[in-house]
């Protein structure tokens, strides 16, 4: 069975495969700062609020236009949400709606993890009815689009936004109101990020996509040297300030906060750390960012 339209939840998904299908409708959206009575019945408070929003809307039929949704194993919220949706469908609490699928990427630094990811790519391609020829075409098309997704050169001093990808661009706006350029992905950006270029004309397009995902630096489960990546980012952007923002439910990236602060200190880049922040409107964070950047001056 193939699906006339499908969407996704989470980062580190095979966007080249999605492009090859011609039926990808993009990531599911979320709306915060509203009552979510259905999700509150079933979902614990340590989940990111975007997960509750998606569950709430799923139950209300808001995603019924899709025939399937692919959840990322690469994100703990997304993969647990997958099991919750499956169970609530099984119990009949959620009626109908898209079929939940999971993309089981593995990023452990061993051949067995790469093999698992390869198996996941090929399995999903089969579910989506995408053969190798179409997959190769999807890689070529996505590779050609990748440069257009790259950040544009900044025309004002750059302030890095590091940590939990925020749910919207309010923090970016707070930075930019002070005359700075905000460099950092929001959550939706990470979900649609296709990652680095995928090798073309390998004769094994599924394997090529799997290799790109296995070594990706995107997401909480990447085996990447965050400190080295930050040093490279400082060099590439010439950033003069950094805001480190971590949500209350953050369980992964926050473990690198001390390391990243040391990198910034060593580089002489002033930093503002905001931890345990709630999702949704955060005027206090915007105020503190404003004060911080004013003190530095542009």
């Amino acid at each position, binding site marked *: 069975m193939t699906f006339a339209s499908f969407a996704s939840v989470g980062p580190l998904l095979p966007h080249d495969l999605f492009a090859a299908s011609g039926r990808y409708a993009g990531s599911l959206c979320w709306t915060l700062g509203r009552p979510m009575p259905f999700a509150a019945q079933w979902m614990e*408070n340590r989940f990111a609020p975007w997960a509750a929003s998606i569950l709430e809307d799923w139950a209300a039929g808001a995603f019924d236009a899709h025939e399937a949704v692919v959840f990322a194993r690469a994100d703990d919220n997304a*993969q*647990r949400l997958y*099991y*919750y949706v*499956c169970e*609530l469908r099984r119990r009949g609490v959620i009626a109908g709606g898209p079929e939940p699928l999971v993309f089981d990427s593995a990023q452990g630094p061993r051949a067995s993890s790469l093999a*698992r990811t390869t198996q996941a790519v090929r399995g999903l391609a089969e579910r989506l009815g995408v053969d190798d020829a179409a997959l190769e075409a999807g890689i070529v098309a996505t590779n050609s689009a990748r440069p257009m997704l790259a950040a544009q050169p900044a025309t004002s001093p750059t302030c890095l936004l590091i940590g939990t990808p925020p749910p919207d661009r309010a923090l970016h706006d707070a930075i930019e109101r002070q005359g700075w350029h905000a460099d950092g992905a929001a959550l939706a950006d990470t979900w649609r990020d296709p990652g680095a270029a995928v090798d073309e004309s390998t004769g094994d397009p599924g394997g090529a996509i799997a290799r790109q995902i296995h070594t990706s630096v995107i997401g909480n*489960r990447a085996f990447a040297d965050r400190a080295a990546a930050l040093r490279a980012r400082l060099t590439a952007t010439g950033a003069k300030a950094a805001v480190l923002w971590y949500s209350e439910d953050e369980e992964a990236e926050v473990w690198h906060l001390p390391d990243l602060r040391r990198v910034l200190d060593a580089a002489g880049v002033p930093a503002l750390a905001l931890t345990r922040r709630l999702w949704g409107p955060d005027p206090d964070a915007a105020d503190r960012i404003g004060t911080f950047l004013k003190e530095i001056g542009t």
Partner: protein
Amino acid sequence: MSTETGPKETGQRSRKMLASTAAANAYQKQFGLDLKRRVVDDGEPFAIVQADTPHELFHAMDVPIITNQWWSAYISAKQLSGRYFEVMAAHGYPENACKYCSLGLACTLANDPASAPWGGLPKPAVLVARMTCDCIQHVFGQWAEALGTEFFPMEAPAWEHKDPRWFAHSRDQWQDVYDVDRIALMVAEMRDLIALLEKRTGKRFDEAKFQHLMEQINVQEGHIWQAAQAIGTARPCPVSIAEQMPNTMIPQWHRGSDWAVAHAKRFRDEVFERIDAGLGASTNEKIRLMWIGAGVWHDPGFYQALEETLGAVFVWSMYMPFAGPQYIRDLQGRPMEALASRICGMNEVLHLPPWMNGWMVSEAERCGIDAAVMLMPPDNRLSQSGNKITARSLEDAGVPVLVIDADMVDAKTWDHDTMVAMVRNFLSERGLA
């Protein structure tokens, strides 16, 4: 998962009735001394591992292991958790970072041999963890770096075959229940781990010894499962969970050893004797309670606080009945695959639907449970996960559920009297007491 029951920050001692319990605690105390001698005094190569990793490989190779959860509980029992949380904050980690996983890292970062248990841990040969939540690879990666050694991460792959009655088939149909592909992945990882251990420790993995170990574990867990089944049907409950836990967990740390097999049998026999004699954990059993969550190691007396006054007896926690469906395996000539099937769902079946709720509803029915008390740790998505669906499933099955917001290793969030009063009020409100 310590079994020490000395005075705690806010807790009370648990009351022990079984000779088996004293024997298990004595063995574990001596084991702790021996382990310290081997890894600290003699400098023998050892590993730090998560509870849901294949300990069997280490046992078969006679490589000492320190389990992170055991070490965390040991630190907690020494009343050092508060100090180590402060150390983490001083190192720049937010206070809400996962406490259950990181106490060992905190102990290492504190770098204070004078106050650390055993003077702190020496450099292990390797750290091993399954990546069941997003924090683990980061905690273990940094811990390995701080100790100057290697982290061996094991995947926790997605599980698409979702059988709510997994526990009914897991002994003999494990390749269907746990997915052939997931089992194959873990077998490949275990082969890599064995190669690493052989290189790092100079010891060899003996397939015959491993096969024997797996057979012995089946015998051991069979004894525990027999006792669990008897406890489920006996009235009154012969043994509180305060004694079920050490008599299950301590042998399980040493699973497959001659002592562990013998102790499991001794415990089972003592349970049978108490049932035959009509002896109960309480002389006044009226309400049978289920405890859902990790043990509250800093207040073991909590579980027995209402036994005599209300006749409310905690007769079920996950540790003992887990022995049957999650440990016992028909080996089918493939012990490595059988082991993989034991490990690759160990965490998932306790924290994700449909496995968690499917099993617990079945267990509540098997054990005649009147009400359940569920731990909801505030800072840990993995430990919270599946709780609300399970609570609803139990309520739908006629089992009232009280949810307690508290952390299993952080005594600061726990007050014995308050928690006991909460349970008492809940039982009263639900018409059970």
